[in-house]
């Protein structure tokens, strides 16, 4: 069901003034620097924090309304939430954890098993939480929140506390989970992150929360084209290209993505099925060479310099390699390479530096 939020919440020096709409079945990513108020906003939606002003409407029904004096208790709001740190009940098995939210639901056990399977931990049902890794615990927490027929699902950086390597591997699954959870009975899904790749890969739309204010909301392409704040500008400073993931090849961990005329080798696609994907990499991951090198990165391709933009400490080079690509280099390197508009160069990028997502 649709979520409609407009709240004012003040606590000491901190103030949150946020307005946000998430449609039924939509996945929205709420992104912003730490301490921007993301978690507080989620808590206000779930009823775990009380705003001083405004309203929270779920499917048109007021869950909170300061003017009308409505404040529905969290347990009656039908809002599911996954917390940053593991919030599994340590004294209950994995199955009992999921079934905690299914009291009085017929076929609760089957439903629990279904969602545990959906997040890939079906075989852990009889374990205790302390026997699980951090990643497994959060998967169970996802299943527990989703198994309940909540109208709104709030995910507060569910994999934020994992190490970066594990995070990469769960991003695919998180997206699949989010889609499944959103499509099931048309839930609105709000996912908090401070990671730009989550925002780029997971959401239908992105909302940016900075310093207690929503500074921008929109589809990914809109936000990246016209960033209104420094935070978004940094976010938008990434190369994001559409491509086609080629079928996996035997005896190679690397996969290939066709991007325009380029064939990029990538390390992070696992055994995903072939099809349309996005690739993303930071401009500082792109290095420029005078000519092809034998020792340098796997991905090398000829490009033409289109524009040079000095940034604070470096130079951003806009390249045309059949597709537009940005590269950040130090100024000294620019002199060595004799970079001018129209100059031919070789752009190089490591296979491990490229993120792939659908």
């Amino acid at each position, binding site marked *: 069901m649709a979520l409609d939020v407009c709240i004012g919440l003040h606590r000491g020096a901190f103030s949150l003034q946020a307005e946000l709409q998430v449609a039924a079945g939509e996945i929205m990513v709420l992104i912003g620097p730490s301490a921007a108020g993301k978690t507080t906003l989620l*808590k206000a939606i*779930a*009823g*775990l924090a009380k705003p001083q002003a405004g309203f929270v409407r779920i499917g048109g029904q007021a869950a909170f309304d300061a003017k009308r004096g409505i404040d529905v*208790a*969290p*347990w*009656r*709001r039908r*809002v*599911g*939430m996954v*917390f940053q*740190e593991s*919030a*599994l*009940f*340590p*004294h209950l098995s994995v199955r009992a954890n999921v079934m*905690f*939210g299914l*009291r009085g639901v017929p076929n609760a056990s089957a439903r629990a098993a279904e969602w545990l399977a959906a997040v890939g931990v079906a075989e852990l049902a009889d374990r205790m939480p302390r026997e699980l890794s951090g990643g497994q615990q959060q998967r169970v*927490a996802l299943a*527990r*929140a989703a198994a*309940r027929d*909540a109208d709104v699902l709030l995910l507060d950086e569910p994999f934020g506390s994992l190490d970066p390597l594990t995070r990469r591997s769960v991003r695919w699954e998180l997206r699949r989970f989010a889609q499944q959870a959103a499509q099931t009975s048309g839930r609105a899904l709000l996912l908090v992150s401070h990671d730009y790749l989550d925002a780029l890969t997971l959401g239908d739309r992105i909302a940016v929360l900075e310093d207690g204010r929503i500074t921008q909301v929109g589809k990914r392409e809109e936000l990246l084209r016209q960033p209104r704040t420094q935070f978004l500008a940094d976010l938008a400073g990434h190369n994001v290209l559409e491509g086609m993931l080629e079928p996996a090849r035997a005896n190679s961990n690397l996969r290939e993505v066709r991007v325009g005329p380029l064939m990029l080798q990538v390390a992070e696609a696992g055994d995903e099925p072939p099809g349309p994907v996005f690739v993303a990499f930071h401009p500082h991951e792109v290095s420029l060479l005078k000519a092809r090198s034998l020792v340098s990165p796997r991905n090398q391709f000829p490009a033409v310099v289109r524009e040079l933009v000095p940034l604070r400490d470096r130079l951003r080079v806009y390249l045309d390699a059949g597709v537009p690509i940005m590269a950040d280099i130090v100024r000294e390197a620019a002199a060595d390479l004799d970079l001018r508009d129209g100059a031919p160069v070789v752009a190089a990028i490591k296979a491990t530096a490229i993120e792939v997502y659908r």
Partner: protein
Amino acid sequence: MDLAPRHISIEADERPEGKPWLWVGSAFLLTLCVLPVVALLLAAFPVRPLSKLRDPMVLSALRLSVTTSLTSTLLCVAMGLPVAYLLARHRFAGKVVLDTVLDLPMALPPVVAGVALLLAFGRAGIVGKHLDALGVRIPFTAAAVVMAQTFMAAPFFVRSARAGFEAVPLRLEHAAMTLGAGRWRVFWTVCVPLASPALLAGVVLAWARALGEFGATMMFAGNLPGVTQTLPLAVMSAMETNLDTAVSISVLSLLLAFGALVGTRLLVTQWR
């Protein structure tokens, strides 16, 4: 470049092995605590005094002690649970006052507590005189024993339970709420099970305190054999006439306390 690990291993080697004076201090305290217990057991060893346990005075004191101490422990739990949770989870005006008042019985000499109870619930007490008008008399009854024990034991349960509730992460309660559990269900299915080792420890402490309660009971309930004479009071009465009886009751009390401690420890370790 491998300075860091070497540094750590040095630290590990420097773990205290026990300074001599630490051991000396421990030895003194241990002697002070263990020697009397040993002496008590030695006095009871010729088994002869243990036959005094069949003395009707001892039996009625035992029965009274068990029933009153269990009743007052139950009361401590019933009244202490909400207070402990309130103190652990909520901020409110006068919290410091409530906290201090609840600790008072631990610092108060029990005899003084008994006098205070008399002044409140005695026949001329501020509440007692109204109760007396209604025909309800509390002092010098088994009810007075229970009240004196509860008064003295409650802080022990509340302290322990509060610490137990404070150790339950708030986000677990929040998670339970978003899973549709109301406050009542959250309390009984999340807070209580997770705090159970601390709750159990509190129960044992409170019960032990109730069982050993002497001063307040003496003042408020008196020393009436068969009515208000609990084991500790029976020991005192017996001391005046028959040392053997006193020793046998003492051993009995020792066994009760020791059994409770060991039992709890076993339960808690099994839990984990």
